[in-house]
């Protein structure tokens, strides 16, 4: 255990130098791109917002089932099969049918190539389950169908969330999928998440519909509230134009009315439809509906064929900017709920960094002084390897540009406390060996050999705990387990290469000295 070849010594020195340089690149700026790496600070240290959003797919499921009801109805109408008593409750479509026609209807649902099973050729499973309940037939989403719906709504929502956040222009946002109905958003450096929260909380479903007091409207009429929650109006269910037809939207100051408005530009299809609607509907009120609430319902005075228009609604400049942003980035497929939020202000982050560094320095000094008093020259060796250990640990975190959190700093401090364990095990063993062995070299050699299993055992147990934490833990806890886990490897390296090398150099020069340790 005591022999080091020249080559090995050079190798160890080079590795140590390499890590010292890498670790110090956190403090200095290197022009070399390889060396210029830095540890990322977690949101709890640099300040920022962590938001976990959950997609509420229920409205989407109901919408799709509603559409499917129409598909079914039309399909069987063409075949002159009469289905009665359509109902959509609890996300189940049910209808009644004559007993003699039942089988043929069921066959249509089960037929893999039938036009109502458009889903089958693509995914090789049924999107809907069909269930016979006496004279009723019930249709609902199959497990596969539901998964497919959720994944696709998650993909869409992720895209929209990204667009909205990019529009606000925060630096380096992190937007990730979680499960099949959640989206994780990390916004570093964001002080006040209120605006983003309110922007992400809106579905931004925009429709243009006529105000209709005529109850015979063939599409049906619904009563909607205005934004102020007081006034109401009857609005036709027929959608003339939706947010999908928008090419652009911008907040503007209207020079005539001196009011903040949102101007919009429509695509070709939208412009055509808008032109037609405005020409036939002069004198009527056109309601502009956002997420089930009427923003405003201006009276149409002229045909608007250019595809440009503007929305008024008593906006402030801020609300107009936000509405324009939402319209530009598009509507979410389903509403999002914020189910977890953690925001840290930048000054608390800085306080945490300072506290963490002070705790690290003081903890380090306490350990170093204690070990020096206890072991003198070997304490010095242990301390030197402890310092290098810190460089290795920080260096590895830097190379991988890992994220350092406050618990991560705690993990580093804890590593300092526990790292001396291996050297202590070795030195105590050597002391014991020296009681029966006069030859220093032999005693040191067997001290290293005999303490090895205990050291391995001790480190494996801690490593197991760190690994479990890494896979089970979230956010900051992951940071703790990461530094604790990497710390175990760097500790073993510094004990068996740095401290051992220094010990060997010292002992071989003092072979004859008694009471060496």
């Amino acid at each position, binding site marked *: 255990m005591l022999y080091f070849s020249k080559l090995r010594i050079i190798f160890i020195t080079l590795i140590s130098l390499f890590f010292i340089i890498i670790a110090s690149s956190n403090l200095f700026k290197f022009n070399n791109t390889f060396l210029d790496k830095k540890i990322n600070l977690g949101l709890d240290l640099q300040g920022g917002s962590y938001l976990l959003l959950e997609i509420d797919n229920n409205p989407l499921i109901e919408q799709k089932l509603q559409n499917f009801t129409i598909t079914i109805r039309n399909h069987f109408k063409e075949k002159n099969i009469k289905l009665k008593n359509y109902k959509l409750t609890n996300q189940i479509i049910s209808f009644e049918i004559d007993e003699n026609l039942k089988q043929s209807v069921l066959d249509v649902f089960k037929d893999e190539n039938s036009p109502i099973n458009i889903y089958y050729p693509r995914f090789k499973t049924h999107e809907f389950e069909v269930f016979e309940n006496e004279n009723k037939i019930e249709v609902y989403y199959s497990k596969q169908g539901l998964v497919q719906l959720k994944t696709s709504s998650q993909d869409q929502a992720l895209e929209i969330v990204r667009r909205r956040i990019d529009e606000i222009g925060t630096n380096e946002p992190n937007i990730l999928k979680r499960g099949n109905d959640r989206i994780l958003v990390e916004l570093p450096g964001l002080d006040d998440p209120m605006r983003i929260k309110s922007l992400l909380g809106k579905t931004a479903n925009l429709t243009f519909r006529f105000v209709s007091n005529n109850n015979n409207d063939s599409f049906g009429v619904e009563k909607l509230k205005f934004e102020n929650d007081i006034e109401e109006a009857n609005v036709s269910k027929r959608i003339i134009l939706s947010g999908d037809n928008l090419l652009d939207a911008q907040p503007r100051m209207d020079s005539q009315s001196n009011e903040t408005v949102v101007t919009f530009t429509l695509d070709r299809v939208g412009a055509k439809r808008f032109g037609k609607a405005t020409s036939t509907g002069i004198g009527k009120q056109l309601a502009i509906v956002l997420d089930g609430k009427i923003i405003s319902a201006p009276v149409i005075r002229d045909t608007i064929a250019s595809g440009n228009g503007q929305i008024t609604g008593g906006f402030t400049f801020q609300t107009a900017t936000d509405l324009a942003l939402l319209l530009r980035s598009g509507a979410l497929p389903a509403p999002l709920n914020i189910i977890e939020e953690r925001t840290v202000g930048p000054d608390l982050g800085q306080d945490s960094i300072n506290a963490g560094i002070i705790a690290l320095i003081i903890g380090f000094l306490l350990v170093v002084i204690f070990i020096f008093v206890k072991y003198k020259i070997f304490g010095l060796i242990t301390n030197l390897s402890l310092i290098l250990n810190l460089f290795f640990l920080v260096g590895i975190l830097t190379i991988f540009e890992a994220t350092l959190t406050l618990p991560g700093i705690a993990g580093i401090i804890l590593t300092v*406390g526990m790292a001396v364990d291996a050297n202590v095990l070795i030195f105590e063993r050597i002391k014991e060996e020296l009681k029966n062995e006069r030859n220093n070299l032999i005693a040191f050699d067997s001290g290293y050999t005999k303490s090895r299993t205990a050291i391995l055992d001790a480190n494996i147990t801690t490593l197991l705990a760190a690994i479990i934490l890494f896979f089970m833990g979230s956010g900051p806890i992951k940071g703790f387990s990461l530094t604790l886990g990497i710390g175990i490897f760097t500790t073993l390296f510094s004990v068996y290469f740095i401290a051992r090398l220094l010990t060997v150099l010292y002992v071989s020069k003092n072979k004859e000295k008694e009471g060496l340790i």
Partner: protein
Amino acid sequence: MIPFNKYYNQFNILSISLVVISLILLTFKGLNFGIDFKGGTLIELRADDKKINVSSLRDTLSQMNLGDVSVKNFGNETDFLIKFENNNDKNTITKIKNNLDKSFGNNFNFRRVENVGPKVSSELLRSGIIAISVALTLMLIYIWIRFEWQFSLGAILALFHDVIVTLGLFSLLGLEINLSIIAAVLTIVGYSMNDTVVIFDRVRENLRKYSDIKIFELTNISINETLSRTLITSITTLLALISIFLFGGEILKGFSLAMIFGVIFGTYSSIYIANTVLVRLNVSQKTVLKEEEN
């Protein structure tokens, strides 16, 4: 040599009573779960105005129908921690901000806001329990592969003792259990195991060496031989932890306190629980040699 073995019985009785008391506390008093596991909202505030205090803040907030609001100082005199249960209002934070500004002037800095919904908190609790169970199971498997069953039993009992008594102490003192406490408990599991394994390693080595010494004496010899290492490692770890506790800021206080308890219990239990199990199971040289023949 310190005669540790003289007090095996007394300390066993002490440990059993500690575990029983802890279990009673955990069953009847329960743990003080933080918002991570219970759901709810937490706000850390810093006031610029020294005149603002806990009771004036509480008065203002209690008029807002937030349900059960807790307000307390957090470290500094001008830092406050506000906690309340979940409600369905998405704009609560904005409303609180406006209300505080109205009552105290624009004097607040919202340093930290955390809001955990009921679904997420129950998931976090579940995954925390799973993490601790998986850790205990893995340790059990490791120790079972590594040692004879008598040793495994000793190590596992010591481990359960440490976890239960640490949690019991948290229950007694009403300290908050949050995500970082789970991390602390897992690290304690690793540390306690580590300590026990080092002593057991020596016990096994000595069992092979001496056939004529009874386990009662032999454990004492082994404890004494490893004692200086046990103490030095505990001391350096405690030094690091105390430094985190005193200087690492309010957020790490709970974590470092749990770890400090854990390290003390872990050191104690590897001497007085793990070893006494070996004594009570009458482990002898045969136990170790038999295993090797297989």
